[in-house]
């Protein structure tokens, strides 16, 4: 059971308190109606699938309830860092 550092609680907490939230830094377009079909497809469905550093979101669902960002290595499953929602990509 991985320990994840919640940047809001500022504490390592067990994985079971968290829910995965998909790839990070995919902002909802300001004006979705202006998107072309291809741009919409990218926004809805296309995701990076890196071998290595992955920027992703987690939610401390059974804790403080906040969504936050993380950089996790998809090969070693180690968390490099976590940071608050809204902060720039690390």
């Amino acid at each position: 059971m991985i320990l994840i550092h919640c940047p809001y609680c500022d504490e390592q907490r067990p994985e079971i308190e968290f829910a995965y939230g998909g790839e990070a830094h995919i902002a909802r377009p300001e004006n979705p109606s202006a998107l072309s079909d291809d741009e919409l497809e990218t926004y809805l469905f296309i995701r990076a699938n890196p071998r290595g550093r992955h920027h992703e979101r987690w939610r401390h669902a059974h804790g403080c309830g906040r969504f936050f960002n993380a950089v996790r290595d998809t090969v070693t499953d180690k968390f490099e860092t976590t940071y608050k929602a809204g902060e720039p990509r690390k």
Partner: protein
Amino acid sequence: MSGFRIDNQGRIDRARPLSFTFDGKAYRGFKGDTLASALLANGVMLFGRSFKYHRPRGVMAAGVEEPNALVSVLRGPKGDRSRFTPNLRATSVELYDGLVAESQNRWPSLRFDAGAINDVFSPFFPAGFYNKTFMWPRSAWEKLYEPVIRKMAGLGNAPSALDPDHYDATFAHCDLLIIGGGPGGLDAALEASGTNQRVILIDDQDELGGGALFDPALWSWLERTRAALAASPNIRILTRTSAFGYYHDNFIGAVERLTDHLTVVPDGPREKLWRIRAGEVVLAQGAIERPLVFDGNDTPGVMLASAALTFLHRYGVAVGQRIVLMAAHDSGWRDALALAQAGVGVTAIVDVREHVAPQLIAQAKEAGIAVHFGASVIGVGGRHEVRNVTIAPNGGGGPATIACDAVLMAGGWTPSVHLWSHSKGSLKWDANWGAYLPDQPNENVRCVGACGGAWDFGAGQSVAALPTPKPLHKTKAFVDFQNDVTAKDIKLAVREGFRSIEHIKRYTTNGMATDQGKTSNLNGLQIASEALALPVTSIGLTTFRPPYTPQTFGALAGHMKGGLFQPTRKTPIDGWAEANGAVFELVAQWRRARYFPQGSEDMLAAVNRECLAVRAGVGIFDASTLGKIEVVGPDAAEFLNRMYTNPWKALEPGRCRYGLLLGEDGFIRDDGVSARLAPDRFHLTTTTGGAARVLNMMEDYLQTEWPHLDVWLTSTTEQWAVIALQGPRARDVIAPLVDGIDLSPEAFPHMAVREGMICGVPTRLFRVSFTGELGYEINVPAAHGRVVWDAVMAAGAAHGITPYGTETMHVLRAEKGYIIVGQDSDGTVTPTDAGLDWAIGKKKPDFVGKRALARPDMLRSDRKQFVGLLTEDPNDVLEEGAQIVADPAQAVPMSMIGHVTSSYWSATLGRSIALAVVQGGHARMGETLHIPMPDKIISVKVCDTVFYDKEGARLNG
């Protein structure tokens, strides 16, 4: 027959003799014996039959690495077979008075096993045989091959009764976790004793000591050390505890065996699952001796040299009196010399090496042991027990036979790196050990003692299979004893083209038995390396996976079984439903009343009565499980406007609206009627199963997309009990109970909400309907739910109030064409598909999912669209999920154009009704379609989804 108890040896308690049975025969042993040591002391050599070839097998090792002696143990009172456990290693079964054990995988008896025919036909059962045989004729597979193979396959019989035992479980935290209570682990524990550190020391034996338990020279040190540790308040010692897995961030799983060693099964848990988070882990798991690979090395009486020493010093048992040692390693010599010194007869030592330390040779000669160098055992005489060995010089030359009653193997040592490897620590090949040693850690962990390579077993030589003049196909030289994998099999795999050790493992099943290759992985690797003419390090090493030793499902489940397996959520009204004969169903985790049969009614009769009662008079329904969210803040309406398809800003306080929630992909995710209580406060509802999901989705948008909106969400699902009252008499029923609310139709129209009191309890009274009748949903704080329900029932008695369940609720809404998200939709349905265009706010510039609705695929006219179906024969009730076709005469596979999503008998209409999704359904009104069933084809007419009161006049009553 050989093997017997030696006086003045062993740690057994001779003052406590025990009685036990094995295969129905009575034997005696002592407290401190294992089943294996006690049977060996009684001269029993035959313990079981091997997996594939049914060869007679005896004990090969003394610990958890034992591959052969798998037995079944029956605990508990006589005649009670509910505590039957198969596949236990006899070397790990602690003896207790009255133990009942049986051998496995043999019929009719261990001595005369009919399955031994497999050994005769073994040339037809090499590795992977099942990939090439039992294929023809195909028809024979189901009736003949599979049943026969199933009967013959496997080891041991599965228990057939429900496990009556309880299992405990806990999380635990410590600063230091020491796994292994041998000298290495004990030293680490001593170092940490008396400090502030929380320390846990675990060992899988009944007493601490590990390897020291069979080294009498260390026993007084052991006594002192154990006493010191027991007196140390910061150290928790867990014996009979196996660490089975090492997980992320120093999280270790272990099982403590609490009662299996006791004669009388006490109340209380049988085992305890420990889930330990450690600051630092010290692994002190020792090393396992390797067998040697030669023809006949599986004969009962052939065992590891260190096992013989363990049986002598720990249990006071000699495994033979005319022992031959086959060695590739100095440690075997030391073991043989120790045996001889204790008076156990050692006849000869055969060493595969040309040169051995002169000191050892001298000691052997002094003990009267014959020695042979540069030679190997090439055969073993005897089938149910060893009678002799045949040896020959490695380079060729005349064989010689030596009479003996036991053969010991000293093939070198393999440090136990299993848990280290679970934790993804890296390994490095060490030529001296002929094994992999821990290299770089991946967690905060270190190895001490033999498992880290820090132990002196002496010098040795790594050998693959021992040299032999016999042609390979004429030998049965075992590598994996439990899965019956021989050297020949591994070479076959290489010949057939397998190069990676992972493939060789799976093709031969080497290392795949319950012992997980503890005595076979390295030998298999060496043989493959030789066959491939590649160094061991370039073939790879198979992955170590938990559990290190087999664990019970019970322990892994812990408390989570029976009533605790999953919470059954009940509403405040549930007690009333149970007392009034409700038949329940599970919806998500909730228990909901499905119908209320009266007298001898079946479900259909009950539902028909309930439906008619609602439409004619009044029905009462527990809707408390509905998800509820309180949305509060100045931006509440703005937020809902962005989330739902509907417009919310103009909704006045006191009014309700049916909300449709899409994903960004445009598909329906959830729905529900929601009320505006104040400019900045909404009471949202969701489906029962969707509550948590919807709240999560909304929080996601609020936190990460629109963090500046002044609006917050609170789950109130369990704050409110919800009593639905539906039917033309609904108002009459609640009028006398309600205070502070004008119930007249002018003051309180359909789709409105009022706050006031009911039965002296504050209420949010919704006038909403899922049945199409005049209806209310009475929301009261949950603690008062039951009282209010009882009062409404009493007030309704005069009106013939009828309680109804989820089944009736389904039928009534279907008659009105109301969709149920998750039943009529499946995540691929758009609002237009569902006929819910009207719920989309056309003037809204944006909402979640709006853009996706404009995708070309979403605009196609042949999308599956929500329609009603009326069967040609009104008595035909369609099956939900049934596929729909246009032309029933077409060839199979037919072109399926839709399926039935909801189907019921409608008492209201006196005929069946159904809802479905059909390609281009909206344009097919009046068309006849067909539903092929196994026994007939049902014709249906496509119609509107609303079957009853299309104008909705009854809603506005």
